[in-house]
C-alpha cells in the first residue's frame, strides 16, 4: 500500500478511537467537565499529563531544532523536563490540596482580589491561545504534506475532532483520549527511532545508539563522525555549543519557570483523588515524557547524519521522491549557485533573507526558483527545521507504514495539547469570569452550558489561527514562556511558600516582572529587530531568556513590598497553612 493510503488508514483509525472514547466518557456535571470528577487513576493521569505536555513543538519541532543546533538544543531538553520537576515538587501537590478547578481560582482566592483573578484569567487566555496557534500549524503541516488536502481543510477536520470530544466530554473525555493519544504518539516516535538506530549503529535503543559506534566499518563513534562531517562542511561541530554560557543559563531557566506555570498542565493535577496521587502521578508523567525527550536528541543526531549523507553532492535530477514533495510545500529549497546541478550542503544560510520566497517559475531541472538574493557562501540548501521528524523516515527509506505512523503520531501530539488548552480557556471563561466574577448566581447546569459554549468559541478562534496563521507565532511563543516565568510562577510559588505574601506584593511583583520582560521582548523583536544581537543585549541575555531576569525582579519586588504592607487576612494565612498539609484540618 502507498504511504498516503496507509496514512489515511492510520489517521482514520486513531480518530475513530478518540471519538469512541469521547462517547464512552461524556461529562454530566461541572465537576466532571473541569476535573474529570477528581478520580482519575495516577498512571492514567500521568499518561494524559505527558500527552498534554508534549505538544507539536516537542514532537515535530524539537528534534529538528537539535539536529541543526546540536549542543545548543539542550536548552529545550533540560528546560522542558526540568520545569516539570519544579512543577511536581513546588506546585502540584499544594494546588491539588487547594482543590478547586482552575489556576485563576487559586490566584483570586490566595490574593483575596477580584482584580488578581481577572488578570490571571487574561494571562491564561493569552498563554493558551499563543500555544494553540503552534498546535494548529502542526496539524496543518501534517495534513497538507501527508494527506495532500489543503491546510484549511486539514485544520477544519482537526478542529471537528477536538470539538467533538472536548465539548462533549470535557476534562473526562479529554483525559481518556489523551491516554490513547500518548500511546499513539510515543509508539509513532519510538518505532522509526529504533529502526534508524539499528540501521546506523546496530543498537536497538536510540538513547544508547546515539553514544555507540557507527556500523560503516570506520570504528568511529556516531557523534565523532558527525562532528567530523559538520566541521568538514564548514558548519559548527555538532557537539559544540555556540550560544554563550550566560544566555544558555537564562534561556533554560526561563523555559523551566515558564513551563512550570503552564495552566493546562497544572490543571491536570486537580483530576486525581489525593495529594499523594498528585505526587506519584507527576513521577509517572515524567517517565512517559522522558521516553520521548531522551530519544529526541538521538533522532536529531541520526537525522543530521542522514541528511548530509543523502543530500550533500546529490544531483537534483536523481533525488528521491520526498524532496520534491517537501519542496512543493515550501519547506525545502535549493538554489544552484555554481550551476553544477548538484546540491551543496554547507555552513551558513543559503539565501538572504534566510526563508525562501518562491516565484511561480521552475528551473531547468524542475526545481522551484526563489527570488531571494544568493548569499556568498557555498551552501545551496534551505531546510525548514519543522520537517525533520516527519521527513526522516522517508530520508532513511523506512517502510511506508512507519511513514504513515509518524503522521498519525504528530496529529495525536498536536490534538492532545490543543484539547487541554481549549479546556483551560473554556473554564477560565465560564468558571472564573462568569461564575466567580460577572454572574455569581449561575447554577451548575447553566455554568456547564456556558463551559461548552466557551469551548466551542475557543475552538473556532483556534481554527482561524490555524487557517490564517499570524506570521509572528515563533516570537509570540517565546513571549508566552517569558511572561509565564515572570508573572505566574513567582506569584504561585510565593503564594504557597510564604504566609506573609500579600495582594500588594503580588500585584507589584507581577507588574514589574511583566513590564521588564514584555518591554525587552517588544523592543528587540518588534521595535528594533536589527539590534537583536548579543552586543546590545543586557548582560548578554537574549529576548528568549529575559523571562528569568523578569522573574528575579518579580521575586525581589515582592519580597520588599510584602514587608512594608499589611499582612494578608488571617483566613488567607490559614488557607496557606492548610494546603501545606495533605490531611484535612479543621
Amino acid at each position, binding site marked *: 500500500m502507498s504511504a498516503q493510503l496507509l496514512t489515511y488508514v492510520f489517521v482514520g483509525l486513531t480518530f475513530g478511537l478518540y471519538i469512541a472514547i469521547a462517547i464512552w466518557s461524556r461529562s454530566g456535571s461541572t465537576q466532571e467537565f473541569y476535573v474529570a470528577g477528581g478520580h482519575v487513576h495516577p498512571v492514567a493521569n500521568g499518561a494524559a499529563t505527558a500527552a498534554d505536555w508534549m505538544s507539536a513543538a516537542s514532537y515535530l519541532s524539537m528534534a529538528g531544532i*537539535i539536529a541543526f543546533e546540536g*549542543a545548543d*538544543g*539542550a536548552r529545550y*531538553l*533540560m528546560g522542558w*523536563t*526540568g520545569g*516539570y*520537576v*519544579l512543577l*511536581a*515538587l*513546588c506546585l502540584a*501537590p499544594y494546588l491539588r490540596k487547594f482543590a478547586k478547578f482552575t489556576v485563576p481560582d487559586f490566584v483570586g482566592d490566595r490574593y483575596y482580589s477580584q482584580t488578581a483573578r481577572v488578570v490571571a484569567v487574561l494571562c491564561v487566555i493569552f498563554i493558551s491561545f499563543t500555544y494553540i496557534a503552534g498546535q494548529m500549524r502542526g496539524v496543518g503541516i501534517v495534513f497538507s504534506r501527508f494527506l495532500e488536502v489543503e491546510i484549511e481543510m486539514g485544520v477544519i477536520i482537526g478542529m471537528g475532532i477536538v470539538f467533538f470530544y472536548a465539548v462533549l466530554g470535557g476534562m473526562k473525555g479529554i483525559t481518556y483520549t489523551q491516554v490513547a493519544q500518548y500511546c499513539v504518539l510515543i509508539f509513532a516516535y519510538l518505532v522509526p527511532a529504533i529502526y534508524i538506530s539499528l540501521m546506523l549503529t546496530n543498537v536497538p535503543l536510540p*538513547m544508547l545508539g*546515539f*553514544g*555507540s*559506534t557507527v556500523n560503516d566499518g570506520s570504528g568511529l*563513534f*556516531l*557523534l*565523532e563522525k558527525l562532528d567530523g562531517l559538520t566541521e568538514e562542511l564548514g558548519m559548527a561541530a555538532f*557537539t559544540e*555549543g555556540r550560544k554563550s*554560557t550566560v544566555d*544558555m*543559563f537564562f534561556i*533554560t*531557566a526561563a523555559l523551566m519557570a515558564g513551563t512550570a506555570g503552564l495552566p493546562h498542565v497544572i490543571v491536570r493535577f486537580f483530576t486525581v483523588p*489525593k*495529594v*499523594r496521587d498528585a*505526587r*506519584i502521578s*507527576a*513521577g509517572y508523567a*515524567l*517517565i512517559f515524557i*522522558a521516553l520521548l*525527550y*531522551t530519544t529526541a*536528541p538521538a533522532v536529531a543526531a541520526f537525522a543530521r547524519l542522514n541528511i548530509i549523507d543523502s543530500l550533500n553532492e546529490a544531483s537534483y535530477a536523481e533525488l528521491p521522491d520526498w524532496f520534491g514533495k517537501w519542496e512543493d510545500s515550501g519547506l525545502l529549497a535549493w538554489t544552484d549557485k555554481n550551476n553544477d546541478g548538484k546540491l551543496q550542503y554547507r555552513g551558513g544560510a543559503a539565501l538572504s533573507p534566510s526563508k525562501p520566497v518562491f516565484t511561480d517559475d521552475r528551473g531547468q531541472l524542475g526545481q522551484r526558483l526563489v527570488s531571494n538574493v544568493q548569499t556568498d557562501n557555498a551552501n545551496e540548501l534551505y531546510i525548514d527545521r519543522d520537517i525533520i521528524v516527519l521527513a526522516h523516515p522517508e530520508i532513511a527509506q523506512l517502510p511506508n507504514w512507519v511513514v504513515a505512523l509518524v503522521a498519525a503520531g504528530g496529529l495525536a501530539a498536536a490534538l492532545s495539547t490543543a484539547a487541554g488548552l481549549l479546556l483551560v480557556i473554556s473554564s477560565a471563561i465560564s468558571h472564573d469570569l462568569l461564575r466567580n466574577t460577572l454572574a455569581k448566581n449561575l447554577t451548575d447546569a447553566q455554568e456547564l452550558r456556558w463551559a461548552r459554549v466557551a469551548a466551542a468559541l475557543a475552538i473556532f478562534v483556534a481554527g482561524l489561527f490555524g487557517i490564517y496563521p499570524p506570521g509572528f507565532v515563533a516570537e509570540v511563543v517565546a513571549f508566552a514562556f517569558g511572561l509565564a516565568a515572570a508573572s505566574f510562577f513567582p506569584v504561585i510559588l510565593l503564594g504557597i*511558600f510564604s504566609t506573609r505574601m500579600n495582594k500588594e506584593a503580588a500585584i507589584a511583583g507581577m507588574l514589574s516582572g511583566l513590564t521588564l520582560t514584555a518591554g525587552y521582548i517588544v523592543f528587540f523583536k518588534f521595535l528594533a529587530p536589527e539590534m537583536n544581537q548579543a552586543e546590545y543585549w543586557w548582560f548578554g541575555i537574549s529576548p528568549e531568556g529575559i523571562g528569568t531576569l523578569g522573574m528575579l525582579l518579580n521575586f525581589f519586588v515582592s519580597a520588599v513590598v510584602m514587608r512594608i504592607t499589611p499582612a494578608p487576612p488571617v483566613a488567607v494565612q490559614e488557607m496557606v*497553612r492548610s494546603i*501545606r*498539609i*495533605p*490531611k*484535612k*484540618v479543621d
Partner: protein
Amino acid sequence: MDSDSKKQTNDSQQAYWRANVTTLLSLLSVWFLVSFGCGILWVDTLNQFSFFGWKLGFWFSQQGAIYAFVVLIFVYVWRMNALDRRYKVEEDA
C-alpha cells in the same frame, strides 16, 4: 479539641513543614547541579572527558539531566510519603 492538643498539632505541623522544605531544598540542589551545573556552567570542562561515545558535558545536557530528573521525582514521592506518615498528616482513605 482543647487548647493544649491544638498547640501540639500546630507545632507538629510546623515541624512537618520545615522537614518538607528541607527535603525540597536538598532535592532542588541536585536538580540545579545536574542541569545548570553539569549541563551548562561546567559543560566545557566536562567535555574534556568522554563517557562511552559522548563527551561528558554533552551527555549531561542531552541525556543525564533528564534521567536525574526522573529519579528526583521518585525520591521526592518516597521521602514525602515517609514524612506524611511520621508526622501523621496522611490523607484519610
